[in-house]
């Protein structure tokens, strides 16, 4: 909402300096977003109101004239102008005159550029300055002709005093609909600054016949239209509005059209009541000479209306219409019909000033994508009390500015009168909510300043607060407390620390685990990313080159996606991570990323999906940053990824994890494993190297890409809540190596499992330290070398003990895995 302060001053005296007023309003909930000073850069003694004394022809140019301009007491000065709106022989017009040295906007430039007027000869004639266009003054883009001021403009007055203004642009919250009007803002300013509202009841001078004979009003659906008022003025002349009115509309952000439309807009901005003007002659035509009857009702099946914007609209049954005997003439409070629109030929105007239900209005304007200043106000709710004052003010304006005769009386159907609301404000309520003791008097004064009426039987009783008609937003005592706080100032409320009882404190294991997992992965050298939760199925399909396309039914789908790329809620992090990897590989050779985020899994029979958290990891490029000492580090491969996953498992104290060789479409065959946890054979996810075909489909370079996606919830379910300290053995350990020759195809995990089982409690650890194939080893076999450490908790092991254990392991390997020992 743009508020020109000169307009505001008609309703309230402004007693504070502008910046202080803006701050006070902002603190009270009407945020002044910008303050625009109109004419602030107009030099007071160089840009003045002038009067044209004479227009003379230019001796050397047909298209130029010489304007002789008087500004106050000095001699008239001659300036050259090319303006087409002053002609030789003209005199008496009031203009904006700029002397040499004045700073103006360059009217010939498309960009905003300033220039300083210098004495110059134009086609041989010396010019003493300039008569300015609106563009040159920064008032509008108008540069066709010069600005002609009203006849009563005081000659010699600095233009800034005559045309200058300050405009507040208010960023209003939805419940400040009352401030979508000059009078609404004025009420607040008056209350905040202790001033009185300067308001007079509008009146109009009616000399025509009784309006009741000229138009009838019927409201068929009073649930959607609580009041419909109308006035009639006949014999108007539709033309441009006077400059002052155009100026105000422009400052308030509206474009002037003609005086009738401008007046409806002006009064709407001033009083907050949207108005609509019908061409009464057209209504008479539609009524075939009879008395037009306006009926407000819901649309009927199949009804259509061609609206002002020349679009024929199919109307829906819950839309509220303004109709006459021939059918719809407007969509109530949203847009008028084309046929009954005001045109330059209009002579008779029926002015509608009505109150429409905000929900119905919002629904219709949203459905038709027709936001407007009117539906902005109707859609937030306006009081029905303003229909008549607004109609009267606008009609009288029309009489004054467009001529014509006003029909006597107001057609006013008012089936639903609002109840006056009275709210009980208990004595302690203000302190209970605000934490500051305020005297009863202070509370009452605050509310009264805003127009609330307060009464009570005694000091101890609650205050009975009657809500003024224009405060539709105040419903309960907490609303009143806010009003008091706004008036007193939020800064008057003290700042205290919580003294209330501390609620039971409970640990949040899920969150703690989340923090720990992220820290662990960062500790492994990975960088956290956050990718969008929405994806598209094409991207998901890239993960599976041969399988069927993803089924949309498996996904939560947006009804209004921003783009088709972000239409579905994801079920996997993998595609987003591969995309993040691709983007980063363009400038960084080494990329190691992880994400912890939710996926969204619809559940049959449930409204809301499951939102389990997943861990995604991608690695690609050199394992280590390049260094002078190691210019060509190895590249990330499956075992780097597995190392990260194993670290995660061991730090979460998860044992009983198995990595099982599987086939999966996104991964390279033979370089992918499924992580399975016991008990329960729980599938935690896949880790491996990305299938080169999939790599290509994601536009990734031809280098190994490691990818893992793990179910965080499953991991956490297997992580013990607590664990116990284990003493390091006090007795010496004894180490011995063992090399085992087994079939090439035998997974190493079977060997180590067998060693551990056979080694029993005395075997503290068995580390695989070498894999050998080649000479001395038969074809199709491999040799695995383990370093075994034996240790007893209660004694020093003898050579015999170790030998016995070693032999037992050897026998188990031979028997269970047909392994041979290599010496």
């Amino acid at each position, binding site marked *: 909402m743009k508020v020109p302060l000169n307009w505001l001053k008609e309703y309230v005296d402004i007693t504070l300096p502008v910046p202080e007023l803006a701050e006070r309003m*902002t*603190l*009270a*909930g009407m945020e002044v977003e910008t303050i625009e000073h109109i004419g602030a850069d107009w030099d007071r003694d160089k840009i003045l109101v002038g009067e044209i004394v004479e227009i003379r022809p230019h001796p050397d140019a047909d298209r130029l004239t010489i304007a002789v301009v008087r500004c106050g007491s000095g001699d008239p000065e001659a300036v050259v102008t090319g303006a087409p709106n002053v002609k030789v022989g003209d005199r008496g017009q009031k203009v904006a005159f700029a002397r040499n040295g004045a700073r103006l906007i360059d009217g010939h430039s498309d960009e905003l550029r300033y220039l300083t007027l210098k004495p110059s000869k134009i086609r041989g004639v010396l010019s003493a300055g300039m008569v300015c266009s609106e563009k040159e003054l920064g008032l509008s883009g108008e540069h066709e002709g010069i600005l002609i001021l009203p006849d009563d403009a005081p000659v010699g007055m600095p233009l800034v005093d005559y045309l200058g203004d300050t405009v507040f642009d208010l960023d209003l*919250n*939805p419940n*400040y*609909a009352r401030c979508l009007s000059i009078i609404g803002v004025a009420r607040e300013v008056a209350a905040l600054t202790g001033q009185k509202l300067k308001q007079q009841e509008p009146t109009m001078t009616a000399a025509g016949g009784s309006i009741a004979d000229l138009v009838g009003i019927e409201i068929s659906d009073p649930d959607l239209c609580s009041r419909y008022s109308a006035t009639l003025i006949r014999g108007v002349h539709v033309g441009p509005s006077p400059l002052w009115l155009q100026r105000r509309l422009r400052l308030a952000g509206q474009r002037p059209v003609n005086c009738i439309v401008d007046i409806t807009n002006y009064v709407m901005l001033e009083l907050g009541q949207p108005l609509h003007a019908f061409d009464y002659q057209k209504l008479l035509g539609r009524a075939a000479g009879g008395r037009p009857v306006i009926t407000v009702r819901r649309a009927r099946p199949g009804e259509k209306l061609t609206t002002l914007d020349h679009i024929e609209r199919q109307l829906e049954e819950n839309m509220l219409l303004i109709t006459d005997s021939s059918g719809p003439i407007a969509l109530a409070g949203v847009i008028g019909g084309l046929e009954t629109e005001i045109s330059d030929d209009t002579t008779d105007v029926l002015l509608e000033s009505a109150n429409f239900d905000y929900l119905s209005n*919002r629904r219709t304007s949203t459905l038709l994508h027709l936001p407007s200043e009117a539906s902005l106000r109707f*859609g937030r709710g306006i009081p029905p009390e303003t229909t008549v004052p607004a109609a009267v003010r606008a009609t009288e304006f029309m009489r004054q500015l467009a001529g014509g005769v006003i029909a006597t009386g107001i057609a006013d159907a008012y089936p639903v009168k609002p109840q006056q609301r009275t709210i009980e404000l208990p004595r302690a309520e203000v302190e209970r*909510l*605000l*934490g500051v003791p305020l005297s009863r008097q202070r509370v009452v004064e605050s509310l009264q300043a805003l127009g609330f009426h307060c009464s009570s039987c005694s000091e101890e009783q609650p205050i009975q607060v009657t809500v003024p008609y224009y405060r539709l937003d105040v419903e309960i005592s907490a*609303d009143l*407390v*806010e009003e008091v*706080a*706004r008036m007193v100032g*939020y*800064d008057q*409320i*003290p*700042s*205290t*620390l*919580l003294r*209330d*009882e*501390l*609620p039971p*404190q*409970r640990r*949040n294991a*899920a*969150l703690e685990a989340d923090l720990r997992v992220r820290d662990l*992965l*960062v500790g*492994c050298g990975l960088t*956290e*990313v*956050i*990718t969008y*939760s*929405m994806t598209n199925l094409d991207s998901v399909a890239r993960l599976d080159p041969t399988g069927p396309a993803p089924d949309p039914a498996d996904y*939560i*789908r*947006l*009804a*209004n996606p*921003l783009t088709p790329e972000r239409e579905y*809620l994801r079920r996997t992090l993998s595609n987003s991570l591969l995309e993040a990897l691709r*983007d980063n590989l363009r400038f*960084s050779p080494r990329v190691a*990323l*992880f994400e912890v985020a939710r996926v*969204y899994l619809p559940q049959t029979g449930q409204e*809301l999906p499951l939102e389990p958290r997943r861990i995604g990891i991608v690695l690609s490029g050199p394992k*280590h*940053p390049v260094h*002078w000492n190691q210019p060509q580090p190895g590249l990330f491969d499956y075992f780097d990824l597995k190392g990260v996953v194993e670290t995660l498992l061991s730090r979460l104290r998860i044992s009983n994890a198995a990595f099982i060789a599987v086939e999966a479409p996104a991964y390279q065959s033979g370089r992918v494993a499924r992580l399975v946890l016991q008990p329960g054979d729980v599938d935690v996810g896949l880790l491996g190297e990305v299938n080169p075909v999939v790599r290509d489909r994601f536009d990734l370079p031809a280098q190994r890409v490691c990818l893992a996606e793990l179910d965080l919830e499953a991991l956490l379910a297997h992580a013990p809540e607590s664990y116990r300290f284990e003493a390091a053995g006090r007795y010496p350990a004894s180490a011995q190596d063992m090399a085992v020759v087994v079939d090439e195809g035998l997974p190493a995990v079977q060997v180590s499992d067998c060693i551990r089982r056979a080694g029993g409690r005395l075997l503290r650890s068995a580390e695989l330290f070498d894999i050998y194939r080649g000479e001395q080893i038969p074809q199709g076999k491999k040799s695995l070398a383990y370093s075994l450490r034996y240790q007893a908790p209660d004694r020093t092991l003898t050579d015999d003990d170790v030998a016995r254990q070693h032999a037992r392991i050897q026998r188990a390997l031979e028997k269970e895995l047909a392994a041979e020992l290599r010496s």
Partner: protein
Amino acid sequence: MLDQLHEMEGRALAELAGHKTEQALEQWHVAFLGRKGALTELLRGIGRLSAEERPAFGQEANRVKTALEKAYEDRALTLKQEAALHQLAREQVDVTLPGRPIAPGFLHVSTRTLREIYDIFAAMGFQVVEAPEVETDIYNFQLLNMPPHHPARDMWNTFHTTHEGVLLRTHTSPGQIRVMLEHCPEPIRVILPGKCYRYEQVTARHEFMFYQVEGLAIGEHLTMADLKGTLASFARQMFGPERKVRFRASYFPFTEPSAELDIDCVLCGGKGCRVCKNSGWLEILGCGMVHPNVMRNGGYDPACYTGFAFGMGPERIAMLKYGIDDIRHFFANDLRFLQQFV
């Protein structure tokens, strides 16, 4: 014979001084002090001396032996030291060469900021709770005092799903209701972090996905003064103890009275600049006393309980803290951005 002994001593010492390796030293030892060495040879000839001469010669021979052994030890030690010095000299490096790089990982700046927020509120007794991102219209709007078509819904442009009445939460506030229903009638102090979504074109200032942290406190004696104290303390811990804070009236359908918390501009210190739109103030969070209807929807009697709630955006906080000028950096996941926050 004594002369021979002294001549041998002189020769041995002279030779010793010339030896530079451990091996040569060893050979010298064998040659002079070994079982068949020069000294032993001389001692063998002791029989040719008279009985009177023998003790003196023996004594002198012993002195020579001790002296030579001592000279040998000294020489050996010197050689060892020289060798060690030589070795160290060879190990000298150019200390100005770059160190071997560690490739550390980085937490996302949003995660870091969330954790700062958790820590500050944890110290005031607020615990972290999470709530679903896919929500119902009922929780996201209706129970928060916004019936269908309520004008306040204009404040949140919503992503709807194809399932009627199911949407992506536009704020973390629906979690308030869930927490209240779960814990009523206990007092409550929680913060609810998480992703939120708004149907908005992405610009330097708006993302369609972002984090929010909601706060909720419910008790029998909580007031707006407690809200002010709690949040002012948060703002100063987050942005520095010298920050000025102000509360101004605002509107949220689920709080009454409602407020917004501003801090003096971190960039211009309140003088006015582009970031603070010349106001000198930066808005950092919205807050207010829990609306009685919301309190009731959560199971609490607003006549007995009061509460306050607040909501803030960690990305906005990080933008102000680190001077990030464009919110699109956060989820573009460019390592050159991500690896600046340590």
